[in-house]
């Protein structure tokens, strides 16, 4: 489309090698994985190969993987699935969670769960002391994301697990935005469940997984035939699952690109943004090396995004799921960012196809937009 795409946190293109593996499963190996004949068995084998790849990438056994329709379903399954099998008690969910965690949490509050939110510091990190107060014996379940979709700030999930283990609290982490941008090891984190999505890691949309610890049980959200060991009914999306598997394999293969190239690109980008007077949210926190969330005083985010779009750059003004709404991001609100600055929020998220040359072009375009918007603001 002749645009420079800087919105990889919203979604990613499907990698060519992922697509090549998916392709035969549309028109040739089209069997239903539940069918007993040859075409069914081919599909079943492909699903199990993909399950192995996902398991390898996260450091678990294949039987710990439940395939879903995406991150939202994985998060719903984790929260409602755990909550369905333990006594109604306290549920702790950070205020910076994705809507697919926050909204199910509110649904559970309707069913009698005591919903509590820990504080978040000004850099967007969940406050562990506050967390410790909430994770007492009355608490049954906690959900804290591994990396935030807007700021890219990495959350102290392993520390939350240590606090939770003292009182036997189940821990879920939404790793949809973290996976592929940092090393993710299920056992090192120590969580009970972890969500991933295909389309954030150069896999297809419409597929994801929930990884669960051995021995923990869930109540299914989708009921029907006994797919996925009875935990998730519905004919398997074979091509999607094959794509997710390959995308997971690539995550591991390409981690060095993230840790060197993307880090370099982001470094150059943020130096440039700050030189233009931009404020980077979560600047002091540890972040995934592709996400820069920033604002300029007195410049409206959607206006700046539209100008950048005119100049050929795709950026986001908040998380993609809520960017249709005009209210400022709840993440920035939780961080205590003043409203006038929050309204200016722009998210640039880089990916495998981003280059240093793109960054230089972007900074020059940003300079142009910011100076002209500042001028028009001064005239008004």
């Amino acid at each position, binding site marked *: 489309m002749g645009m420079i795409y800087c919105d990889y946190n919203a979604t990613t293109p499907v990698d060519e090698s992922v697509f090549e593996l998916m392709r035969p499963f549309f028109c040739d190996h089209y069997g*239903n994985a539940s069918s007993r004949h040859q075409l069914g068995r081919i599909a079943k084998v492909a699903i199990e190969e993909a399950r192995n790849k996902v398991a390898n990438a996260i450091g678990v056994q294949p039987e710990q993987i439940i395939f879903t329709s995406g991150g939202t379903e994985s998060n719903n399954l984790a929260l409602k699935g755990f909550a369905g099998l333990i006594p109604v008690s306290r549920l702790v969910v950070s205020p910076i969670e994705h809507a697919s965690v926050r909204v199910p949490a509110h649904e559970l509050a309707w069913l009698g769960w005591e919903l509590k939110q820990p504080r978040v510091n000004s850099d967007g990190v969940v406050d562990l002391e506050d967390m410790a107060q909430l994770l007492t014996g009355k608490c049954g379940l906690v959900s804290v994301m591994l990396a935030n979709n807007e700021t890219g700030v990495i959350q102290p999930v392993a520390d939350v697990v240590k606090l939770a283990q003292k009182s036997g609290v189940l821990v879920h982490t939404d790793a949809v935005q973290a996976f592929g941008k940092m090393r993710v090891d299920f056992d090192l984190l120590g969580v009970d469940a972890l969500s991933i999505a295909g389309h954030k890691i150069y896999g297809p949309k419409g597929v994801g997984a929930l990884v669960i610890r051995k021995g923990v049980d869930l109540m299914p959200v989708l009921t029907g035939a006994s797919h996925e060991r009875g935990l998730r009914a519905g004919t398997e999306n074979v091509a999607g699952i094959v794509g997710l598997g390959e995308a997971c394999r690539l995550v591991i293969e390409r981690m060095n690109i993230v840790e060197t190239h993307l880090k370099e690109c982001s470094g150059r980008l943020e130096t440039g943004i700050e030189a233009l007077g931009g404020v980077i949210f979560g600047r002091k926190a540890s972040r995934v090396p592709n996400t820069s969330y920033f604002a300029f005083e007195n410049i409206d985010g959607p206006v700046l995004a539209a100008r950048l779009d005119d100049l050929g750059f795709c950026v986001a003004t908040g998380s993609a799921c809520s960017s249709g709404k005009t209210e400022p991001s709840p993440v920035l609100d939780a961080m205590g960012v003043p409203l006038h600055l929050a309204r200016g929020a722009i998210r640039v998220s880089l990916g495998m196809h981003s280059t240093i040359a793109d960054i230089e072009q972007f900074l020059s375009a940003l300079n142009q937009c910011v100076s002209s918007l500042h001028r028009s603001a001064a005239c008004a």
Partner: protein
Amino acid sequence: MEQNTVNLPIYLDYSATTPVDPRVASKMVPYLTEYFGNPASRSHVYGWTAEKAVENARNEVAMLVRCDPREIIWTSGATESNNLAIKGAAHFYKSKGRHLVTEKTEHKAVLDTMRELEREGFEVTYLDVEENGLVSVDAFRSALRPDTILASVMLVNNEIGVIQPIYELGEICCQQGVLLHVDAAQATGKVEIDLQSLQVDLMSFSAHKTYGPKGIGALYVRRKPRVRLEGQMHGGGHERGLRSGTLATHQIVGMGEAFRLAREEMGVENERVRYLRDRLLAGLVQIEETYINGDLIKRVPHNLNVSFNFVEGESLIMAIKDLAVSSGSACTSASLEPSYVLRALGRNDELAHSSIRFSIGRFTTEAEIDFTIDLIRKKIGRLREMSPLWEMFKEGIDLNQVQWSAH
């Protein structure tokens, strides 16, 4: 396209799933790698392009079933659509009543969801079907109570292909103020669906039964009069708050194109499929002691479900490994339980076990049908040669009078 030679195995399992039509696949591909935006992205052209493709597809789905595109909600497939329709309506209307009605030959996604609601305190009536697999309209009428909030009856049965009297059931539901949900996963492209004339409130669709991709489906939610649902998948508020989750653009585009092709081609295609089915039927009924399961008239032309007496089901499947067919629904065939659908028709375990579902589709050829008839005749003959039951039957022994050893 007609060939004299056939490639093995012959796929006659179009009711389990269909290949993606190559025309559908070619529409999908650019949305994986090129126009890959998130349809929810509002600030750039990648997002807008994806959103436009999603809305085009919504129109196509709506046009096949004659509804307003705003009445179509995307889901991950018919299982999710059935879950959303049944749980969503039951939860929303539970203050009105706690009774639901369905029938015994529904898909597991409906039956299991009903069981789940029973655990939550709802009461469910599971209607028997007649010997031909059809729901009795009178029995349905008498099952409705003042506290009934929802009935769920499938349009086309997945195992035996019979078409339920949805039009009549809809009128009854409408008179009684009961919502009607219809699982139409097996119906699209096979029977005309006109939601302008049907009194149906909720209808589930699947793409992969109609030459679209797996992992995508839709739910029709009637607007006038408006049907309310409690969402089951919570999050970013996609699909008017009824179903959150990033929309899988390529999948949706695939479903739209598949449904467009169904709308344009079903007339001609169904006649061709009917010709093939009738040819298969004519060939198989010449075999002694075969029983057709389900009504032959009120039935989609794609389906033929036959029980072969005195032949054991699993050995039959082994014998016909050159045919990709189902013995029972694809979703349950991993277990050795006899098909609950055939049991509901009153078939005994033996006949239920020895049933084969042949489902014919877009790419089935006449040569494949002829090969199939020939193969089935030979294999049934061979297995019956080996069957002590066949021998006894031929000797005139009534097997029902035999004292079988306990085992």
